């Protein structure tokens, strides 16, 4: 089970502590988390389920800049979902 940590900016809709999610990719793990925290979905993904432009994804210490939702995850991965500073 991967660990997922959301920025504190999302504390009103996100779990306050790290949560776990299963899946082979970032998108799969997030979908698993959204199934339990549905309000989060629209904050991270747009109407077409694309990652919002100014949301930053870090997996195991690497800033995933391209095709982040398809980036592979392992059961031990740590996923940080943060606000990209490009968004102000």
């Amino acid at each position, binding site marked *: 089970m991967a660990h997922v940590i959301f920025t504190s*900016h*999302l504390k009103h*809709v996100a779990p306050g502590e790290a949560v776990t999610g299963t899946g082979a990719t970032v998108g799969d793990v997030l979908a698993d988390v959204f199934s339990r925290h549905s*309000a989060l979905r*629209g*904050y*991270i993904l*747009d*109407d*077409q*389920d*694309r990652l*919002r432009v*100014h*949301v930053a994804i870090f997996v195991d210490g690497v800033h995933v800049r391209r095709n982040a939702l398809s980036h592979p995850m392992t059961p031990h991965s740590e996923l940080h979902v943060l*606000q*990209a500073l490009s*968004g*102000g």
Partner: protein
Amino acid sequence: MADQERLYVSTRKGLLTYVRDSSGWKLADMAHRGSPVSMTLPSRDGRTVLAALNLGHFGVKLHRTEDGGKTWTELQPPRYPKVETAEAADDKAPSVSAIWSMTWGGPKGHVWCGTTPGGLFHSRDNGDTWRLVDSLWNHPERQRWFGGGTVEPALHSIAVDPRDHKRVAVAVSCGGVWRTFDGGESWSIGSNGMWAEYMPPDMQGDPVTQDPHMVVQSPSSPDVFWCQHHNGIFHCTDDLANWHQVKDVPVSSFGFAVAVHPRDANTAWFVPADRDQTRVPVEEKIAVTRTRDGGKSFEVFRDGLPQENAFDLIYRHGLTVDDTGMRLAMGSSTGSLWASENGGEAWSLVSAHLPAIYAVRFASSL
């Protein structure tokens, strides 16, 4: 008629609510502190308010209060249907990037909502659920719309005919004016007579490529519409059959905002600015213009407004008039808020230190 002594101000850093007392307008409440509020729709009694947020990182959000702002509930905002084709991952598949307009739609709880990239949405339940108006989104002419001031087309004006709520007009930058007579089942163009100086000469009269910055419909004579267009003021007296450009406009024919008098279709207000290359007040002096004879002549008002070194622009939703036609408010791109109690002839500064103001709207006192 209840006094409209409550003013909702949508700003870059939150929703500010002003209340008027004997000494003037006072800040009474601040909601969504720090978040850009692109549009606010209060009910006439000011208790139910829809507030559209446009969060820099996390997208468009919609909140509603039913107790005048004491408590807010987050709603599901309008969303474009998922494109379930090979193009689904295409960056051009639509996603709401801003809510630019919201208007009550006739029957209780009905709301129209205009967005970038150019979609119109409808709710029958005070914003709890939304549906995209497919008939306009799928109209073949929509493919010719383009952005004006925004990358994507923006549907910013919605006018619901007070005689029949199924007759609705919308305006798009840049896509002209569109009209439905059947509650959104079908649409026809309503910007004949406008012209666009930014188009090649033989395309300037194309009604589909017009940039009507703001369109308002007269509540008292609904066949009459006013438009502050990208390159002029246009007037229509025949229910969107034809528009006519108003000639000899003082100060400048460029601007964004227009407001029409609630009981006199011949009276309308504008806030001119230097033309599109610069977009600052003419000579850095702020003026409000008013016509009372259907555009034949204008008065220019400057009393109470800065007359030097002012860079305030009044955007399209930044000017509003109350039910009497005497009380007006306007908010600027640089965070100044003014109010008038005499039909715009004189203005008093409410604050010069607010965030950028996107929209101002009156409601009755609670």
